[in-house]
């Protein structure tokens, strides 16, 4: 397979990281714009330490990056990491496009005759 695939372990980290609603929300927020860990912590009903843990999980999964800026820790989306998830979804989308084409072909055969809707008249 000439696909630039994640190692199974790395991919597991990505998917486990995204299996949590708070972490998905963090990814969405920092994809829209970067945020400090303390800025994120203000938005959730959980401790700073808990948010920091979530960010660490996302960082290990290569979905976000964290950098020190002065006294703040700035969280940004890691577009390479997200890109890999998108690529898998792209591939899966392609599978459904092909399925849809096969369905259209099957329906064009007209078997069994669809009542009323069209008249192939043979």
């Amino acid at each position, binding site marked *: 397979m000439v696909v630039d695939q994640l190692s199974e372990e790395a991919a597991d980290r990505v*998917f486990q990281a995204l299996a949590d609603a708070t972490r998905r929300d963090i990814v969405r927020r920092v994809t829209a714009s970067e945020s400090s860990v303390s800025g994120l912590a203000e938005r959730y009903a959980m401790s700073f330490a808990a948010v920091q843990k979530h960010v660490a999980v996302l960082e290990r999964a290569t979905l976000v990056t964290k950098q020190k800026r002065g006294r703040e820790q700035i969280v940004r989306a890691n577009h390479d990491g997200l890109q890999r998830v998108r690529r898998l979804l792209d591939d*899966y989308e392609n*599978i*459904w496009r092909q*399925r849809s084409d096969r*369905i259209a*072909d099957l329906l064009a055969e007209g078997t*069994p005759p669809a009542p009323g809707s069209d008249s192939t008249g043979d």
Partner: protein
Amino acid sequence: MTVISSAQDPGALSLTVVAEFDAGVERVWQIWEDPRQLERWWGPPTWPATFEKHDFVPGGEATYYMTGPEGEKARGWWRFVSLEAPHRLVFDDGFADDDGEPVAEMGTIHGVVTLEDLGGRTRMSVVSTFETQKQMEKIVAMGMEEGMKGALGQVDALLVEPARA
């Protein structure tokens, strides 16, 4: 173009594909209901699907296998969570081992299919939500081979006049 739109939500690991077909909803429902029709489109030509069991009732199960180019078999199962003929179908799709037993750690793909009547035509939307990367990679790996052949198949389709008479 059969597929009219699609939307990905990487954060939620979900994908929505919307397609339109030149057939009524009752007819399109049959391609899910009838296992002989289902197996003509579910698997790619390189990995055709064979449904051994297809208990198309709410709570019912289906078991199937897909046969690869080398004769290898990939087994799967479905559970029909809810069926509202001919408009809505909710099912879980999972992997099975060689004995047909569900492989729990692979997780399930949750599918919600909606058929909308467009006055003789049908709009079908399929929302697929994944749980784990393994299921996605496995399915995609099987679909990728089809990617290239599919492209060639499309050329063939252009060359063959879709004669209807």
